[in-house]
């Protein structure tokens, strides 16, 4: 009996040793592409490292955080990031829910509409930015032409409010298909009996949606909010292509601020400080959501 147990333990430890061995490449990959850059970035944020200096790198403590993170410029970029994240996700959830509800009904032509709605998801953010910057061109763009029918002449990229609106719209438009897909999958998997029972009990449309369907979709919505908020918060491509952060600094968000420090000023230490701050802001949100949803 004891000998058998020892054999089992030995076999188990041998197989777990193999398991560790087999997972080693994945672990090394994870360390090299996730942990190592994070640690290196944190290290650089504590130095005066710069791409345009041949002088030896010095340790400067928290100086980069003082000059880059605890500033009005950072606060303004944080505000832009939060506005983009909040409004794009809110509108995506609202529109996504309505579209998903409609598409979840088995109607004629549903698959065609699903295919059409999914199109933006196939485009890269840079392609979306390029396409919309042509359409939003205030002199020759399609939007100007459309505006002419209703007597409007708005240059969306020339004021801070409309430029921000354009960025939020593109973020909304580009990622709406993802939200629709996930919500539709969630709706299709809801237990029909509960919804039918609620209907038989006399629940009207609002009650059915607000008190039955949406609460049952809460885990799905939480997953969408987690994924989309992290993505929207670190959005860069669209801003780079569409507004370059303008007018003035009106659409400079945190990733764009980090980009400018790294690739316009060539100051890797300042860029690292901003990037570490972005991680520090996003991580707690991510963990709170994980805990809330127990995903």
């Amino acid at each position, binding site marked *: 009996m004891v000998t058998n147990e020892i054999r089992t333990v030995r076999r188990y430890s041998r197989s777990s040793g193999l398991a560790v061995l087999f997972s080693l490449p994945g672990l090394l990959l994870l360390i090299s592409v996730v942990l190592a850059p994070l640690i290196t970035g944190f290290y650089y944020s504590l130095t005066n490292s710069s791409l*345009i200096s*041949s002088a030896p790198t010095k340790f400067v403590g928290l100086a980069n955080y003082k000059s880059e993170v605890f500033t009005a410029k950072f606060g303004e970029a944080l505000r832009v990031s939060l506005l983009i994240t909040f409004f794009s996700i809110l509108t995506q959830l609202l529109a996504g829910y309505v579209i998903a509800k409609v598409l979840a009904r088995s109607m004629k032509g549903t698959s065609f509409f699903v295919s059409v709605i999914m199109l933006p998801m196939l485009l890269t953010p840079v392609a979306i930015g390029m396409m919309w910057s042509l359409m939003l061109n205030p002199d*020759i763009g399609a939007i100007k032409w459309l505006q002419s029918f209703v007597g409007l002449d708005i240059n969306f990229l*020339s004021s801070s409010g409309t430029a921000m609106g354009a960025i939020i719209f593109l973020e909304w438009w580009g990622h709406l298909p993802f939200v629709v897909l996930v919500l539709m999958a969630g709706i299709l998997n809801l237990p029909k009996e509960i919804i039918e029972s609620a209907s038989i009990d006399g629940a009207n449309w609002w009650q059915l949606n607000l008190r039955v369907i949406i609460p049952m979709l809460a885990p799905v919505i939480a997953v969408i909010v987690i994924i989309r908020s992290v993505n929207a918060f670190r959005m860069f491509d669209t801003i780079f292509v569409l507004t370059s952060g303008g007018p*003035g600094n009106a659409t400079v968000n945190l990733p764009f601020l980090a980009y400018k420090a790294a690739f*316009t*000023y*060539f100051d890797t230490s300042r860029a690292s400080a901003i990037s570490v701050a972005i991680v520090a802001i996003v991580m707690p949100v991510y963990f709170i959501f994980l805990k809330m949803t127990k995903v």
Partner: protein
Amino acid sequence: MLNINFSKRKVFVTLLSVAMVSSMSVSARAAQEINVFVTVSPSSDALKAMGPGFTAKTGIKVNFITVPTGDVVTKLLLACQTKSSTNDVVQFDSQHVTALASAGCLDEVGLRAAASSEYQDSRIPNQLKAYGTYNGKRLGIPLSTEPYILWYRKDLYAKLGLKVPKTWTEYASNAKKCADAGYFGSAVPYGPAAAAYRIGAMIHNYGGAFFDKTTFQPTFDSVQSKAAIKMAMDLVYTTPASVISGGGAVAVQAMQELDVCQMLNATGWYSILGDAKQSPKVYDKLALADAPHMNGSKETFLFGWLIGINQYSDQKTNAWQFLEYSLGKTNVEAFLKAGAPPTGRVLFGSSQKDLLAKVAPYTAVMDTANKNAIPLYRVPEITEIMDVVNRGLNAMATKQITFDAGIAKLNADVKAIFVKSGKLKG
């Protein structure tokens, strides 16, 4: 059932082998081989066309590494940080001389140029030499020279009876007449990544500057700088809306598609605006003239592609041989025929001049601009300064802030940069 018996030793040897093979993946380059780092441009196309002839003559193989324009300086700086010898000849934007020089990326190519009878350095105007120079060392030779000049629509000028403006006051007056007639008067870009360059040239024309070169105190609030910025902002009303938010390329697009009377832009755009296929509406209606000036000052910034040798190259002599072959006296015509815009070198002989007149009919205007050219401020902080000035001017043009607040912001932002770098006290 497959029974795999892993011994610790076998696994260790396998992993070690993989590690050794990986570490040996950096292959040695042949001695008679150079790598030329270029970006997409007519100049690099011409360089590529010179490659086979050079190889046939010298036996040195030429490999071209082409990267997107926006990546040039970053890739060079990153390679330089690792002291990489991969690139031998490097093409770079003249405005990045300071960054590349500060990082110690470039070899002093000026010494080789001065000693070469084939390159004939004496034919390169001093202003062109200056824009490749940093701290007394010449680190780049001109591959293309692209100063700002005046572009105007001959047909609209004729229709409205306008004269080619000599001063900015005349330019503004022409712009107003164009606006009154229902055309766009000007296409000077005010975008958040572009405004500082052309308006910067205007500031210098008015006798102003971004900052005092000895004290580093910002001078946007000087009478001259304010007058230039005021003039630039007064042109916003007659500028196409896309150009208010855009850069040089957007201004070119506006010239192609809209009825814009005039603009200040680099000569390099001729390859697009002078091409019937790319600009069918305007290619034969555009004319070029000297950039307007003011108060007798014709100073303008000089832009264009420079080319040099990587500081860490182990093929410096071969690299110079390639530059000498491509840009030297023997192949002047071959280089132009290959589609290169003018480097700015002074040409002799009617065949060279005729050829240049054919490929670049703006040569006379360019030569005048070259004579009045100054390099962009040679301070390591310049990229950050240009960014804040771009954004400040853009905020003023889009009415995000008032004129006075904008001037104050420009001064404060530039001062903050110099305070951070220790050149000014806070």
